[in-house]
């Protein structure tokens, strides 16, 4: 490790600064108001500034103090499959309908664990689909097309 600083502190500082900057800059476009009638921009600008400052402090404190533990590996497969599935669910639940979406989403998430095989993922997704159908649609009366308009002929 050539870097003589805590990667964790630098990274979290950077995230704080990034969020603080976004909120502060965006809020500058809103009305700042007066002390009597504070505008919608007042709090976000102030808090965004504080977050940037805190981000700088966090990063600065990490200088000269490298992390003691080695960083764990990145779960790229998990990130792609789990987050991808959630996005897929949101994008298609109205169009494809409950059954196809839950089947596909269950299958893809299950595959993000290296301990699942294609077959076990298939079994898990089928089982989950039946369970979700029973709990949410039958039990709780959730209103959702079971097979969506995209699949109708």
């Amino acid at each position, binding site marked *: 490790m050539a870097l003589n600083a805590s990667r964790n502190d630098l990274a979290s500082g950077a995230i704080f600064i990034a969020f603080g900057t976004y909120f502060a800059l965006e809020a500058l476009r809103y009305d700042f108001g007066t002390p009597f009638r504070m505008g919608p921009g007042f709090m976000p600008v102030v808090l965004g500034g504080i977050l940037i400052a805190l981000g700088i402090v966090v990063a600065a404190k990490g200088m000269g103090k490298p992390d003691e533990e080695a960083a764990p590996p990145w779960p790229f497969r998990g990130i792609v499959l789990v987050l991808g599935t959630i996005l897929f669910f949101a994008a298609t639940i109205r169009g494809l309908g409950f059954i196809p979406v839950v089947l596909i989403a269950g299958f893809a998430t299950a595959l993000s664990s290296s301990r699942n095989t294609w077959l076990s993922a298939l079994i898990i997704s089928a089982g989950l689909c039946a369970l979700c159908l*029973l709990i949410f649609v039958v039990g709780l009366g959730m*209103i959702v*097309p079971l097979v969506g308009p995209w699949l109708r002929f």
Partner: protein
Amino acid sequence: MKTVVKMLAASLVAGSAFSVAAVMAQDYPTQPVTIVVPFSAGGPTDTVTRLVAAAMSEDLGQQVVVQNVGGAGGTLGAGQVAAAANDGYTLLLHHIGMSTAPALYASLPYDPMTDFAPIGLVTEVPMTMVARKDFEPATLEDLIAYVKENGENVTYANAGIGAASQLCGLLFQDALETKLTEVPYQGTGPAMTDLLGGQIDMMCDQTTNTTSQIQAGEIKAYAVTTPERIAVLPDVPTMAEGGVENFNLSIWHGLYAPAGTDPAIVERLTQALQAALADETVGNSFAELGTYPVPASEATPEALAEKLEGQTALWAEVIAAAGVSAQ
């Protein structure tokens, strides 16, 4: 277990029934009807809808399900119904906000006038002008004089942009040609809390929320916003009695289908609505809410269309004059 399987099968059938193209209008309804409420469960509009839905399902012989699609001042739910299939199985129950949205939101994805087929008016809830119990003015005349004199020193609570309580305040300030200090709240519940605690001076809210407080003497009532006095609060004068002319405001609720719905289906729904409004339980429950079902002559597509048109024009003017916008 057997019943579960049956229910599952039934819901599968219900799902696939969507795909069977044209359902004959004379057979309508052959499956459950959904009424979308564009507000969260438990609110006054939701309450009204559930009461009406239960009574309508008796007349239609099919379950009428209430679905809450809250958000963005009711425009999300309304937008969803505008875009729904016009087969008569997705309806919208919305209040006065239907007519204010075009003036408040610059980019509405639907047009309240052309994207819906009105079914009928449901109820009109009167509003009351109220104040904390130790507020100085004794009568409506006193209040008007006091407000004209003190203007911005009087604090007026409202439930946020576009809320009925804000519209009422706008009309009031407009009529008196004065400006109050408006204090917005997240809904009328917290506003009522501060009114009870004497933290603010005045507000205007529907009878549903104010009647019990007025009767208990916890807050002062100065006027009702309808042309006539109302039965639950016989001692409270109308605005006109205090010399404020043309002050007519109520939270009216209407039932709509998406535009292009078969007129025969709309007629059937109007009939079911009228039957529901004539139902005794509905009438009694409405009375508890401080309101009443509209007469059958107003639970018609024509009456609702006329109401919507008139109100949309009125609020466009008032809201533009006040410079209010939800963007």
